[in-house]
């Protein structure tokens, strides 16, 4: 029997958060984690987190578990990876299974904190069990933890935050997202996440659903259909999409089965994603021996899971007499979590929790007073500035912290929109690299006559090079003009800044670019002579066919100018504006096509 003060089940953000609090209060803490690696879902979150700068905002999820581990007091802490908790028995003994050694072990703990996370939901459609149909979290694990791509052409089902973020990550990993299917008329996830993938040209099929998947051994395609407000399929709108992977991002449900074995009170809460253990604001369940935190206590996001874990840790410590000032310590965490849940995605969770706590709910809390943060750019402003395209109440403030000139204000209420003071903005573009939503762009109207510089936060490969010609795309990913790469600024945090220039008239709309094809325009195929070489010669004054022929040897190859003569004459006309019809185009001489010399010798001898 392993004896411990506190047993934590689950080594994700909530479990690690709880361990910080219990170990720092001197409680002997054991943490069991089913997977061989710690961090739960953090280990695959390659994007920067929203939230307050003081709580990891702007940090990529993959770095957060190490930060949490640093805060845990090691002398009171032991971890068992590859161990899953499989049962809580009537006498309070917890059974754990060591998958490596195939051994069942018993644990006796004074308090148990359950931070077991969530399971992925699935939806019914024909052949929904076909290999190649994966949960969004599964896809993330495969590509971001093990470095294996799930497929080449992905169809995403669901435009919530997970669907949008995983789509973006799939593109970063080199896959092609053929579309996102969403039953609702709008994305459930944040606008900035939607904007990121929209400008890369990913089609989003709103008011659509998947009807069937097809394929022999694995996915080869899907059939989707438009639905009306009552979810009825609209005939004639069926569409077949070719894909080798279907990724389901249709929600998560709390995974707290192990707690149900203890007979604690459970409740069904649609706002929290399903069956959750009844718990108070400090994460204690209906039993003083069991605490719950993170997604197991209602689906939320990782930052609030860390905070819930900390609350559960404090609560468990208080119940063991190791925290006398609990009420005071709770406050900071409770206040922050309330703020995190003020945004339009968090409010659902807040409502679910309020119902659980029998706290009065005011529906006015569900609507937000939005400040207008659009700014008018004075005519004649030539100094570079930033365009903040963040119009939604996201609990987030790294832009404010990153500005050295105090030009951006979010304020104490982190769901408020960022306001830009144009007079203070120097156009330094620091904020572009920090915004987790990649929603800030740099504008420089003074870059070159008639051209505007647009600086784009960029997290894709390959990075372009200065001087490259690329295609400027608008917010829907549609190519609208040609653009030139003016600067490439690499950043340590891997959000690089690419400045492209476009003609002024496109400046308002270009927010992305596609690399142009590298290569040349060939004019003379026989001798590999390019349009650039001919234009260069024309610029040097060789504006006559006979001159070009002697200078570049065009038309002197085996084809005798059949392929290029006309093209070259057109280029001369375009350059000089002269009527070239009377110009010499060379003098054809025999032989008309290449012959072996031996053909001319007597009797064909060498």
């Amino acid at each position, binding site marked *: 029997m392993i004896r411990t003060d506190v047993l934590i089940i689950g080594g994700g953000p909530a479990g690690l958060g709880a361990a910080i609090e219990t170990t720092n209060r001197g409680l002997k803490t054991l943490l069991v984690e*089913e*997977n*061989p690696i710690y961090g739960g879902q953090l280990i695959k979150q*390659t994007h920067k987190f929203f939230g307050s700068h003081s709580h990891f905002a702007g940090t*990529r999820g*993959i770095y957060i578990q190490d930060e949490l581990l640093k805060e845990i007091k090691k002398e009171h802490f032991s971890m068992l990876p590859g161990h*899953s908790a499989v049962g809580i028995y009537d006498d309070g003994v917890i059974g754990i299974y060591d*998958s490596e050694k195939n051994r069942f072990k018993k644990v006796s703990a004074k308090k148990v904190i359950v931070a077991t*996370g969530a*399971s*992925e939901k699935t939806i019914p459609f024909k052949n929904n*069990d*076909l*290999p*190649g*149909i*994966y*949960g969004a*979290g*599964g*896809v*993330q*694990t*495969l*590509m*971001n933890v*093990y*470095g*294996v*791509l*799930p497929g*080449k052409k992905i169809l995403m089902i669901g435009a919530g935050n997970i669907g949008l973020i995983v789509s973006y990550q799939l593109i*970063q*990993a*080199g896959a092609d997202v053929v579309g996102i299917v969403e039953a609702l008329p709008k994305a459930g996830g944040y606008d900035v996440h939607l904007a990121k993938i929209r400008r890369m040209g990913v089609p989003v099929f709103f008011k659509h659903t998947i009807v069937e998947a097809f394929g022999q*051994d*694995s996915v080869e395609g899907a059939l989707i259909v438009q639905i009306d407000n009552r979810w009825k399929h609209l005939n004639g709108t069926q569409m077949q999409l070719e894909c080798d992977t279907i990724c389901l991002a249709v929600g998560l449900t709390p*995974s707290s089965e192990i707690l149900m074995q203890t007979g604690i009170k459970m409740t069904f809460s649609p706002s929290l994603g399903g069956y959750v253990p009844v718990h108070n604001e400090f994460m204690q369940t209906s039993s003083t021996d069991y605490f719950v935190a993170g997604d197991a206590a209602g689906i939320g996001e990782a930052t609030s899971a860390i905070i819930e874990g900390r609350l559960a840790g404090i609560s468990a410590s208080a119940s063991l007499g190791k925290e006398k000032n609990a009420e005071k310590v709770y406050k900071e965490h409770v206040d922050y979590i309330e703020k995190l849940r003020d945004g339009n995605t968090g409010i659902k969770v807040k409502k679910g929790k309020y119902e659980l706590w029998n706290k009065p709910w005011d529906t006015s809390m569900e609507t937000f007073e939005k400040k207008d943060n659009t700014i008018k750019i004075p005519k004649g402003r030539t100094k570079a500035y930033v365009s903040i395209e963040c119009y939604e109440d996201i609990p987030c403030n790294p832009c404010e912290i990153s500005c050295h000139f105090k030009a951006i204000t979010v304020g104490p209420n982190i769901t408020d929109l960022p306001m830009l003071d144009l007079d203070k903005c120097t156009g330094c573009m620091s904020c572009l690299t920090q915004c987790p939503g990649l929603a800030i762009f740099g504008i420089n109207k003074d870059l070159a006559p008639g051209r505007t510089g647009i600086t784009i936060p960029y*997290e*894709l*490969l390959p990075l372009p090079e200065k001087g490259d010609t690329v295609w400027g795309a608008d917010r829907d990913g549609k190519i609208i003009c040609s653009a030139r790469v003016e600067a490439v600024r690499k950043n340590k945090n*891997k959000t690089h800044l690419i400045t492209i220039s476009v003609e002024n008239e496109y400046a308002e709309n270009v927010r992305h670019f596609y690399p142009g094809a590298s290569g040349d325009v060939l004019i003379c195929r026989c001798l590999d002579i390019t349009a650039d070489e001919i234009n260069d010669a024309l610029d040097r004054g060789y504006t006559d066919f006979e001159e070009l022929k002697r200078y570049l040897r065009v038309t002197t190859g085996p084809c005798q100018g059949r392929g290029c003569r006309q093209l070259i004459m057109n280029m001369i006309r375009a350059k000089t504006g002269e009527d070239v019809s009377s110009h010499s185009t060379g003098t054809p001489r025999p032989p008309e096509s290449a012959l072996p010399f031996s053909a001319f010798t007597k009797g064909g001898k060498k």
Partner: protein
Amino acid sequence: MRIAKHPILDFKKQKRIPFYYNGEKIFGMTGDTIASALHDNGIMVYRVTDKSRKRGFFCAIGKCSSCMMKVDGIPNIKTCVTELKTGMHIECQKGKGSYK
């Protein structure tokens, strides 16, 4: 398919390790789970159910039971959370699995 280059992540170069799939020798990398190594080899069907439905992996975190296979003669191993070891014998599982 391994991701060769990633804009955010640095995948450390790993050692290739041999293992067997239905008797055929193939390769994975150190740090792989059985499921990730099979997927990299283009193998997507991990078991065939009693009703002849083909199943691959799904959740990758050991919750859904979709990826259970026969590993070194033992059926019903969750391959998405089981580390790949040199020389392992992995078999596509038939039905509920057997020790035979």
